[in-house]
């Protein structure tokens, strides 16, 4: 196949692909690069390498607090979203019922509509009902974008395994609950892990909804936003950002790798 005419290697295209990837990664890689710079200015030439910004970060109370908050929100949102996503993905792939296509489009809406609109709408809702803004409201906001992600990740898993396996389990005497534990869950397990990891990352990195729905306790992105006002804080922001980026990369890579044999064509349903 690789030698067939259609797939002849195309040098300019290969070059383009490499340059493309470089441009994709390099801007982000500048952050870690300059986080080791011994200067509060982010520019060439660099003035020597140092770990001082990292060390200084470790000592800050506010950073640890924000990290904890992000963890709380992220873990809650990923568990709830994955649970709801399992049921939702199963319903979508296994059952026939009316209105499926519009419902699925509706569920995927939060992934496409500008988040500022959701942020604004939810803010208005919370204040009208009188719910105080806090980490709980942020979690609710994050659920709105995590649930579609969870469903999108789990959908290929459900589509990929033969429905008659669950029927066989029922036929052999297991009710819905037992069938889920003995058959369904083991079969979708990589998808569940991927969903948990990806939803956590989405929530951990999310800024816009957190900005609108936050009370007094900041999540990590919110903390960074606050620090951006002070130029002398730039290097510590760089250090923090670098650590977040590294962590996100590792978590997401791991999640994708675990889920690697699910088909990709179902992930991007588009409009």
């Amino acid at each position, binding site marked *: 196949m690789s030698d067939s005419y259609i797939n002849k290697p195309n040098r300019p295209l290969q070059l*383009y*692909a490499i340059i493309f990837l470089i441009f994709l990664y390099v801007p982000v890689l500048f*952050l870690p690069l300059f986080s080791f710079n011994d200067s509060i200015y982010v520019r060439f030439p660099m003035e020597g390498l140092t770990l001082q910004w990292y060390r200084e970060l470790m000592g800050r109370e506010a950073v640890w607090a924000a990290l904890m908050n992000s963890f709380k929100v992220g873990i809650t949102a990923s568990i709830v979203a994955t649970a709801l996503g399992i*049921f939702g993905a199963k319903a979508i792939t296994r059952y026939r019922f009316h209105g499926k296509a519009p419902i699925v489009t509706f*569920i995927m809406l939060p992934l496409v509509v500008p988040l500022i*609109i959701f942020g604004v709408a939810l803010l208005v809702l919370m204040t009208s009902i009188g719910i105080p803004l806090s980490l709980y409201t942020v979690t609710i906001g994050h*659920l709105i974008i995590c649930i579609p992600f969870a469903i999108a990740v789990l959908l290929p898993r459900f589509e990929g395994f033969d429905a008659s396996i669950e029927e066989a389990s029922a036929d052999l005497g297991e009710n819905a609950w037992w069938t889920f534990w003995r058959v369904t869950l083991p079969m979708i397990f990589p998808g569940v892990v991927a969903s948990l990891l990806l939803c956590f990352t989405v929530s951990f990195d999310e800024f816009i909804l957190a900005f609108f729905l936050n009370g007094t306790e900041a999540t990590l992105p919110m903390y960074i936003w606050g620090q951006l006002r002070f130029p002398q804080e730039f290097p510590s922001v760089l250090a923090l950002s670098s650590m977040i980026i590294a962590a996100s990369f590792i978590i997401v*890579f791991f999640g994708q790798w675990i889920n690697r044999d699910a088909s990709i064509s179902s992930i991007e349903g588009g409009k």
Partner: protein
Amino acid sequence: MRVGWFQRQLHKSEAFRGYTLLSPALIFLAAAILIPFAILVVMSFWTTAGFDFNREFTPHNYQQIMERPIYGALLWRSLWISTIATVFTVVLCYPMAYYVAFHVHRNKMMWIVLMTLPFWTSYLLRVFAWKVVLGYEGVINSGLMWAGWIEAPLEFLLYSPTAVIITLAHAWAAFAILPLYVSLEKIDKSLLEAATDLGDGPVRRFFRITFPLSMPGVISASILIFIPTTGDYITPALLGGPDGMMIGNLIQAQFGAVNNWPMGAALSIVLMLTIAAISVAFILVTFFVRKRIT
């Protein structure tokens, strides 16, 4: 074997089972999406009065939006920036998607993960990274000056619509690559071989077969980038400067410093309707164009 009412309904109807499973997610999303929007619509017809709202129903905000030119101008500029960013992104990502679909034979999954990995980091951080790169004393300028290629820093890089466009393109590239890749991958290779057999060279083959067949992907990608970027406010806030300000900033200000929530609500509604109208128009136009081609 006594079986309760709920279990009987579950057993009798497949549709009932489907809805039941879907309901937690659906109810939550419905409540979290529809109710706030309803409230938003209602609020857009109120006006601000000190620290509270004047709940008298009035189209005052919408009138303001129609009459005062700043709103229209800002909306127009947002759409313009979004459109350029969309075109820019789709055009740049298309060859990449093409490469992975047609010229990568092993580890396709790895390439896909590689291309989309940056997308999983914080949006805020990626915008911040560009601020660092494009700044007055930023990476590009200081690097070029250090290498002696320019004398004074390039002004246009930061705090301009250009900066916004470049950053948006970079940030949303993954949303373009995936749909483009999926639709290119689906093209039956034997169609291309048939075209070659019938006399088409590579360029003609691309324009007559590959590109038209990848149109669904192009459309998906365009919509997936256009819609979110119109309402973006982080990018313009950090790097737009006064010339690069977008409607998202204005909306956010209404809920912040300006403290005119009803106006913010009205602007949000207008933004949503505009996006919806343009998307629908876009889909219809491409639909008719495709009908004429095929």
